[in-house]
């Protein structure tokens, strides 16, 4: 939370969310009158909607949300699709108006590259360390193997009788 403007915006969103929740009748997401006649376009619209955040909700996509704003966005997505936009153009259109925050799948640009590369990087790092460990355990395997078990037993016994 840096700037006061961000926290203020958060607070405002929260307030809107609370009010909307209080007023909205639970209808659940996509309304029958929103559904496009063209099933291919509708399918694309659903796909796009699942990736867009409902700005006044708590962690819901516009495809799942009951809020009025989510409905407006769903209609906007469908309008653009009917007008012949590609999926990317529709998303860009929405992002232009509502900012990066609306994307549930963050773009791979700038600092976010770190986020997207993190899983692979962590796996490689952890995998490398594990490999070194397993190798090391394996190398010392040959000589000491026989002597291990009784000693282990003795120490444990010792400890338990302490």
């Amino acid at each position, binding site marked *: 939370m840096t700037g006061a403007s961000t926290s203020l*915006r958060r607070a405002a969103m929260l307030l809107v969310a609370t009010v909307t929740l209080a007023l909205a009748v639970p209808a659940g997401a996509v309304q029958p*009158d929103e559904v496009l006649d063209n099933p291919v376009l509708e399918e694309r619209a659903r796909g796009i909607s699942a990736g867009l955040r409902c700005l006044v909700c*708590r962690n819901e996509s516009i495809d799942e949300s009951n809020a009025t704003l989510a409905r407006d966005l769903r209609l906007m997505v469908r309008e653009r699709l009917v007008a012949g936009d590609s999926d990317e153009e529709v998303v860009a259109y929405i992002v232009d108006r509502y900012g990066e925050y609306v994307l549930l799948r963050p773009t791979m640009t700038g*600092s976010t590259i770190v986020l997207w590369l993190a899983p692979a990087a962590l796996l490689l790092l952890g995998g490398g360390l594990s490999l070194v460990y397993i190798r090391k355990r394996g190398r010392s395997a040959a000589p000491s193997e026989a002597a291990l078990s009784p000693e*282990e037993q003795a120490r444990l016994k010792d400890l*338990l009788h302490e």
Partner: protein
Amino acid sequence: MIVELGHFALILAFMVAVFQMIVPLVGAHRGNAAWMAVADPAATTQFLLTAFSFGALTYAFVTSDFSLSLVTANSHTLKPLIYKISGVWGNHEGSLLLWVLILTLFGACASWFGGNLPPSLKARVLAVQSSIAAAFFGFILFTSNPFTRLEVPPFDGRDLNPLLQDPGLAFHPPFLYLGYVGLSMAFSFAVAALIEGRVDAAWGRWVRPWTLAAWVFLTIGIGLGSWWAYYELGWGGFWFWDPVENASLMPWLIAAALLHSAIVVEKRESLKSWTILLAILAFGFSLIGTFIVRSGVLTSVHAFANDPERGVYILMILGFFMGGALLLFALRAGAMEAKGVFSTVSRESGLVVNNLLLAVSCFVVFIGTVWPLIAEMFWDRTLSVGPPFFNAAVTPFVLGLAVVLPIGAMLPWKRAKIGRAMRALAPAFVLALAVGLLTYAIYTGTSALSPIGVALSVWLVAGAVTDLWTRTGRGSAGGRAGRLWRLPRADWGKALAHAGVGVTLFGVVTLTGYQVEDIRVAREGEPYQVGAYEIELLGVEENVQGPNYISTLAHVAVRTLEGREITQLNPERRIYPVAGMPTTEAGIDSGFTRDVYIALGDPQAAGGWALRTWIKPFANWIWGGTIIMALGGFLSLSDRRYRVAAGAAKAPAPRGQGVPAE
């Protein structure tokens, strides 16, 4: 009066906790047996005082004592009794009281059942456990007192959030907390071992049942929460990658890794420092989860409190315990030299891979969860990290785990031949491949990921069966079947838990890949077809009065395509006037192979009602698998070697007569 006594008991418990965190620790350091021994009565006293305090708060809720501001804010006279009780923990202050109640219960259990622990280790474990309790008692008393009175009590309360008035959610928090807090025992054992400077097979044996119990409770808690979301939120989602869900998933993943690596410590005296680190991190993620939920820093449905003061206090607790434990780890871990050796292909290596995948997936979830905060702090970018990211980032780990799990589970300790395990698994592999291909053939044109997921779940279940069957040794099929029932419970527990993973995976994959959805305006007397079913709206009743809500209730017939009626569903929309909040109650016909899920929408201007219908294949398998996993954990927990240990604690037999290592 009872309320004041409850408050007083809480303050006393705080003092006992401070006492118990210092005296036994000093005693263990000096080798003073009497000082060490006070930990036992102190742990019991602490628990009894906290239980009394919790009882007092419950009493206030049950009797609707609106002079307590907490009761006023979260209860109502008309609320059914069960939700008056669950209302105790359906809020910030009460849920924290439940948190410490469970924490002190675990401490007391360690005292009651820890008779075979070396006295100095036991004293240190109880002292560390008590230091956590002291921190949280302080948190409650100084920032979140549940016993605050109102000067002018109102006539009635403001009611509990209606979403929380539900049986699934009533018991979701207690289980989750049993899991979160159960991991504190692993933490206390780890820190105590670091102070002692000794970790051995016996330590692994002591710490494993606690971790296993915590993991089982977390599994049940997460399962309940997911089941609740499925039927309550009105469209049948079961996992949302909400920060609060992630907060429970992270400790679950680490606990799963921990209970596997503790086996290596117990059986082979390897992976010691890694296991200690996992034990510290597991509880660390529990604390992070508590921080995320309680501070409301990542806004989500579950954030009860949006109060920075509380957030900072929990952050301080987190910093102190994690910083302290990790510092101790850095100083002492070098002394934990591993003893067991193993070759590259062995059970040990398999478990290292298991730990690698579980731990890395946990960190991936962690990074995704906190990334919006990081991006805002360092680059002033306001962005979201939602389900599309998590699905893409975590799915490879799940698939990887599913591929290696049956193989790793079959490998013998120390030195294995991969060919042998693979030969035993050949039938499972062929079966999985066949089912996967069949699925792909039936649903041509859909993504290849779903058939792969189906194949992997078959692979997991068949692999677990193979594992169990292989354990019966050689001989006639009849003889082996007979031996099957005499296998140790731990073997059954392992096979069940692993099969449960497969069953859950199957449910998740089929539900997300092959569900059928229908959204339309339904009119009375106009049946229509969804999937292999005929749906007809029979009528809608408005203004149906419930105990504390008003309902709009639809009657919907579900028939086969031949017109035979299967069931009638009653999807509802409720309004809770006191809280001013609406909820949806979907009509669900649960079945073994599919759920028919119907949600009622708005009345339409031109007549009719918006009606949403889903056919959700194998939905129940998601939670069925969860139950199987938990059952496997319980079975393993009841295995003879742990019961023997517990028996030794109860019997007045010579102290320290422990279980010999295997």
